[in-house]
């Protein structure tokens, strides 16, 4: 594999690596016929990201070196990131960047051709790996919104950098609401965190296909990573989401590249946010019913694999599916589970080998697929009316 990136695209590549580095510790590099794919998944497998850079993105793109097998590799994110660490440097001094991979040297070679004939060569050792592929389908998500990345970037700006999760939902008057998510333990403790809520009018969105009252909660850090990439490239960002607990899919696309981020969303089991729902976020009843029926319909003809972000590996181009090298046991286990309301699986996510003892959020990632369907009253944030409540 050999490819050559020139001019401003070097920085775009750098930015993409920065966005991916917010998610995983390993980068999966795979030359495909329709472009170079860069993928990563986080250690708890609750977030997956993929960029495909089209052959047009490169000045020269050669997926297969003649006489060689198709190669794909896995490298440490840290070492790849260090090549592109300083974006200012990339912009100012690097004229072209050449990435080549060949089996003989067992090194991924990244060469930066800089001004004044300076050439920096990075030899990164890699591991052979199988293809990393998440199974997801944006088309199966009933809810979708699209806006320029700048709008969403401005929307997350007020949130503190340390905030872990944010809830996205549709509020009264079809306003899009982003709200800081507070974990149960935090909410119960005496030291309370500041709650921030951003409310944006429907007119700032190019497309808004979701009813009032729907909401999902996902990780902010990964979302910020994609946003900063999309903002710099001045792209539109689409967010596809479903019921709480099902993955949300964030996509960007232009003629030279496309990007997909798939983030787990929090399964709605938090009594605190239900409190919120009952206290001040009364949803009109008909909408709730609409919501739950459509939801049930969805669930009835639900091909379970299309909803989960299951890591699958395919061996080469034969397309035969094998059990991946990454720990997939929870998915397998769940997908053969006859009882969709099985709570044991949810209750014991920590028994999965290789999964770190996660926050409830992350552990629910796989289990959530089978979460009970009758829990439509989410955090469903609605802009609270100005109240003069007693303090």
């Amino acid at each position, binding site marked *: 594999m050999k490819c050559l990136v020139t001019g401003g695209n070097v920085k775009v590549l750098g930015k993409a690596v920065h966005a991916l580095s917010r998610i995983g510790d390993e980068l999966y590099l795979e030359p495909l016929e329709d472009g170079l794919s860069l993928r990563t998944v986080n250690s708890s497998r609750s977030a997956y990201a993929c960029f495909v850079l089209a052959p047009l993105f490169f000045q020269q793109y050669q997926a297969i070196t003649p006489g060689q097998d198709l190669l794909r590799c896995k490298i440490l994110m840290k070492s790849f990131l260090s090549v592109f660490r300083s974006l200012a440097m990339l912009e100012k001094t690097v004229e072209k960047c050449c990435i080549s991979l060949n089996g003989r040297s067992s090194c991924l070679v990244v060469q930066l051709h800089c001004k004044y004939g300076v050439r920096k060569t990075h030899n990164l050792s890699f591991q052979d790996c199988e293809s990393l592929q998440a199974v997801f389908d944006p088309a199966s998500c009933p809810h979708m919104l699209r806006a320029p990345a700048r709008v969403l970037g*401005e*929307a997350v*700006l*007020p949130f*503190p950098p340390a905030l872990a999760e944010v809830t996205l939902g549709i509020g009264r008057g079809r306003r899009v609401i982003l709200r800081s998510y507070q974990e149960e333990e935090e*909410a119960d403790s005496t030291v*309370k*965190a*500041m*709650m*921030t*809520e*951003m*409310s*944006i*009018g*429907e*007119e*700032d969105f190019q497309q808004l296909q979701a009813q009032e009252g729907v909401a999902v909660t996902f990780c902010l850090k990964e979302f910020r990573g994609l946003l900063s990439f999309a903002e710099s490239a001045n792209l539109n960002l689409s967010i596809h989401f479903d019921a709480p607990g099902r993955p949300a899919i964030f996509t960007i696309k232009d003629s030279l590249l496309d990007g997909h981020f798939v983030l787990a969303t929090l399964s709605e089991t938090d009594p*605190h946010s239900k*409190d*919120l729902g009952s*206290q*001040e976020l009364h949803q009109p009843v008909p909408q709730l019913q609409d919501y739950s029926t459509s939801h049930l319909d969805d669930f009835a003809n639900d091909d379970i694999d299309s909803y989960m972000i299951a890591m699958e590996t395919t061996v080469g181009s034969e397309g035969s599916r094998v059990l991946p090298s990454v720990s997939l046991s929870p998915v397998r286990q769940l997908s053969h589970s006859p009882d969709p309301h099985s709570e044991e699986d949810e209750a014991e996510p920590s028994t999965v080998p290789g999964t770190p003892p996660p926050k409830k959020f992350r552990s629910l990632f796989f289990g959530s697929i089978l979460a009970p369907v009758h829990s439509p009253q989410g955090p469903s944030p609605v*802009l*609270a009316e*100005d*109240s*003069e*409540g*007693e*303090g």
Partner: protein
Amino acid sequence: MKFRAKIVDAACLNHFTRVSNMIAKLAKTCTLRISPDKLNFILSDKLANGGVSMWCELEQENFFSEFQMEGVSAENNEIYLELTSENLSRALKTAQNARALKIKLTNKHFPCLTVSVELLSVSSSSRIVTHDIPIKVIPRKLWKDLQEPVVPHPDVSIYLPVLKTMKSVVEKMRNISNHLVIEANLNGDLNLKIETELVCVTTHFKDLGNPPLASENASQDRNPEQMAEVHLDIRKLLQFLVGQQVNPTKALCNIVSNKMVHFDLLHEDVSLQYFIPALS
């Protein structure tokens, strides 16, 4: 208890943001006292925590276009709240280019000071950010600990040099010592001193000027050359100096020998008093 206020003017909003940033730098948590005419940010540290106290006062009508409040009762028409000052400053940071800002006391899922900001956006649409800052309402019986501190008669009162200069001097001294001696006389001299086993560093400021003496008091008979000195925890002094981003209109330092130093600052119409006790 009710409280609701609104700022529409950009200059007022900026000024209020600056005040809240300053408070956030000076105190981690503070008490906000709301009365019909004034807002006060109050810090009164327990002696165990260093005993620093702060009294910041601003006239509400210089900031707010609307201001309604109803205190605990008619005769005690005040509200005392405890809040994390960084929360307030962070909430106001998002109000940089706001059309309007509202602050109100609410009881959503917990008692909060709700700051809602209507942002200007390129399109005609409106964006609203709401921050719910958790607060603790301070009961009446604790109010007495939060009254305006009595300023003791100083031995020496002197105008401060440019605070930025003073900050950079103290920052460097901080690397060498944990204690600092601040001394001044009625001849316009102020010295910052540190002493360790290895080195002794003094920075001299001259001709700073002394304010006219208020009335009959002991310092009238004082020899103008005689220094009054206080030993301080250098971190406390530095914290005060770091909090001063804008040079104040007036900056006065009052020294009560071996007891405390009192800084009296005026930023346009906001007054700040800051007390650092002496190390024994």
